[in-house]
């Protein structure tokens, strides 16, 4: 399979063509433009190495996320960054290349945080390996974490090693009637206290809080926080619907902005909103003027992305990079993929 990938890369390079690396295709809606011939990774599957007591799993990039999670669940472990499963075919390579993380990210860390190492084919089809299968590794620049979120614009990830964590022994969800400002304040105050918070969501004047950890810790927090206890099965469905974006809020929005900002930033008042990550992630289902969205995000210490929209609108929604940072992006792209072979213009119109 690797030989096939290498041939594809070499052939595309020879033709001056560009390649669009694709796993399950669940994220095809995302990006400024999708260009190039599809390089399908889904044939490159399998768990290469997994030893639960190492807290590390190594898998080929085309392996479905669902398969990896099933293997982990069999040993009481999980991918703690909760990668969104946008369709059943979603691959681990796509999860890492997008860098997207689900509700638990606010407590456990992001996809990038769990990357320990990658194997890849670069734009010259050379097999390279960065990072490794150990928890701590500072030899060389951290290219494996750098590739998380690169959306197939730098190299073809062929294998990843990820840190995994035990599933929490106990989990419980509470619901509170609170307006947005009160919810932001409350959840951030709680996050500054030793409470086993593992996720939060605010929408429709309700704050949802998930607690995860040791039984005694969850019980103690339940007693302390009050609120309305949500039935476990309903709660599981709710958090999964946020993670996988099957919740009606996501499913019905035709234009969706994603603002990653300071969690404590005041309510933005820009339209129908779903808030995650203790206020750090605000989804806005409204056809905002691009300038308005970018200015609001910048004013709150973060950035905005037009996550989903008609193709015609997409280029207005790209994340704003300062000129020096943009120039550095271009130099790095040039350094790693001088021909512009991989994922041209997916992340940005300028590279």
């Amino acid at each position: 399979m690797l030989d096939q990938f290498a041939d594809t890369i070499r052939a595309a390079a020879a033709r001056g063509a560009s390649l669009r690396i694709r796993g399950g295709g669940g994220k095809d809606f995302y990006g400024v433009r999708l260009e190039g011939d599809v390089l399908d990774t889904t044939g490159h599957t399998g768990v290469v190495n997994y030893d639960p007591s190492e807290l590390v799993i190594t898998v080929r990039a085309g392996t479905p996320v669902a398969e990896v999670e099933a293997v982990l669940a069999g040993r009481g472990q999980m991918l703690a960054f909760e990668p969104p499963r946008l369709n059943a075919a979603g691959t681990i390579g796509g999860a890492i290349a997008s860098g997207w993380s689900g509700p638990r990210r606010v407590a456990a860390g992001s996809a990038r945080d769990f990357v320990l190492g990658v194997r890849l084919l670069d734009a010259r089809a050379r097999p390279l390996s960065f990072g490794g299968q150990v928890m701590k590794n500072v030899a060389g620049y951290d290219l494996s974490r750098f590739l998380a979120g690169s959306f197939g614009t730098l190299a073809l990830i062929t294998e990843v090693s990820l840190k995994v964590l035990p599933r929490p022994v106990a989990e419980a969800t509470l619901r509170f009637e609170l307006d947005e400002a009160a919810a932001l304040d409350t959840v951030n105050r709680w996050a500054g206290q030793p409470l086993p918070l593992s996720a939060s969501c605010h929408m429709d004047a309700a704050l949802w809080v998930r607690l995860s950890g040791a039984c005694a810790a969850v019980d103690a927090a339940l007693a302390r926080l009050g609120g309305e206890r949500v039935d476990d099965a309903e709660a599981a469905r709710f958090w999964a619907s946020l993670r996988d974006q099957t919740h009606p809020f996501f499913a019905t929005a035709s234009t969706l902005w994603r603002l990653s900002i300071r969690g404590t930033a005041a309510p933005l008042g820009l339209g129908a909103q779903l808030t995650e990550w203790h206020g750090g992630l605000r989804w806005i289902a409204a056809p905002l003027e691009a300038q308005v969205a970018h200015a609001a995000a910048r004013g709150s210490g973060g950035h905005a992305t037009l996550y989903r929209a008609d193709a015609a609108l997409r280029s207005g929604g790209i994340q704003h990079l300062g000129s020096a940072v943009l120039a550095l992006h271009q130099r790095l792209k040039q350094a790693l993929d001088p021909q512009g072979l991989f994922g041209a213009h997916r992340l940005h119109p300028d590279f």
Partner: protein
Amino acid sequence: MGKPELFETIPDALADKDELVRRLLEGLPAHCVLHAPEQLKPYECDGLSAFREVPLAVALPETEEQVVHALRTCHGVRVPVVARGAGTGLSGGALPHPRGVTLGLSKMKSILALDPLARTARVQPGVRNLAISEAAAKHGLYYAPDPSSQIACSIGGNVAENSGGVHCLKYGLTVHNVLAVRLVTIEGEVLELGGEGLDAAGLDLLALAIGSEGLLGVVTEITVKLLPRPQLARVVLAAFGSLEKAGEAVANVIGAGIIPAGLEMMDRLATGAVEQFVHAGYPLDAEAILLCESDGTPEEVAEDIERMIEVMRASGATEIRLSRDEAERLRFWSGRKSAFPAVGRLMPDYFCMDGTIPKRQLGRVLRGIEKLSAEFGLKCPNVFHAGDGNLHPLIMFDANVPGQQEQASRFGARILELCVEAGGTITGEHGVGIEKIDQMCAQFRPDELATFHAVKAAFDAQRLLNPGKAVPTLQRCAEFGAMHVHHGEQKFPELPRF
């Protein structure tokens, strides 16, 4: 770790020291530029004192503007720049360049903002690691990564090394606890990487900057995450009759679904050394001891501790003690925390190695180190972050005995190669610096090293930032590198042999 020529000559570099100082003084006050030999002396090495060089000058900027000036000046005259925090690094990362400027960040030590509700602190690079937690304490918060050097090391140095600590098994490394940095390039451009949100626009340049050992830019500001201070911590001390047994216990704890706040191992030589020094009360007849900590709410800790003790017992611990109060917990840790200085008292010199291996290889690698220790005739106590497989063998030697330092260097190189063979890495947290530059040739193939150089060139095309460190040139690997045969393949088939 031999000492071939460490620094390449940079063509057309300004060599006139007076002229260089004059230019630096155009943007830095007089008290911020050191150039007299006796002023330069204190900067000649970092924590790896076996390597010493005197720089042309030391600049100690007080503001980011002055950092920019110093970098622009050096860039203009092609003079190398070595950033320096507190100088506690153990791999020679802050070793001066003999024809360069050392840029010390120690005067930039303000905590610029602390937001208890958002749980972040914005600090200057010279702030000491522990000072952040001290400032956050009144809000019940702290900065989690806690290198043993935390009373002295700077947060800028932590970012440059991606430092870890005893608690990083549960709370992560520096890279997991930093939200944003301001990075000044060699050309004097200020880049804002990351942001106040949990992820930033574009590619993850922050991941690249963290752990880059001062080769990509100079960090002038850092926004860190703060965590709520756990209400309670307790530690289990368990003794074992063999290193293997202790290693199995480590795997069993984690296999049981427990993530301890810290999980450290010390072998008999190490416990013997520290007992003479701090009286931590360690059982001296044990081949290895484990310190296994739980922190959190009292309920969580009680639940964890019960399970930890159960696993230790089932794994064959010969003795188990549980800290009864905070004083006893600190006493149990005191030995671990003073292990390096304790070894330093027994022997004039030691090298602290930093390889990381998959935990299942612990027994094998530790036995390998024992064998090497006998072969080289040098003692090598082991203290390490067992939970993440990060070894710190301490090779004891006396530099005054002719040949011993070279022996120790060779011993160290062999240990690192053992780690690479076991599927691990040559450095878990101390960085490559100058110390492990040749072992990089064993860890990476030429194409991978070339990729590192390409990344470097995107930031610093003239290679003026900390040249000679962290990533060896292909030339150097061919000439001096560890040219062993690895998995049956020769390392650099395309390069000529010398």
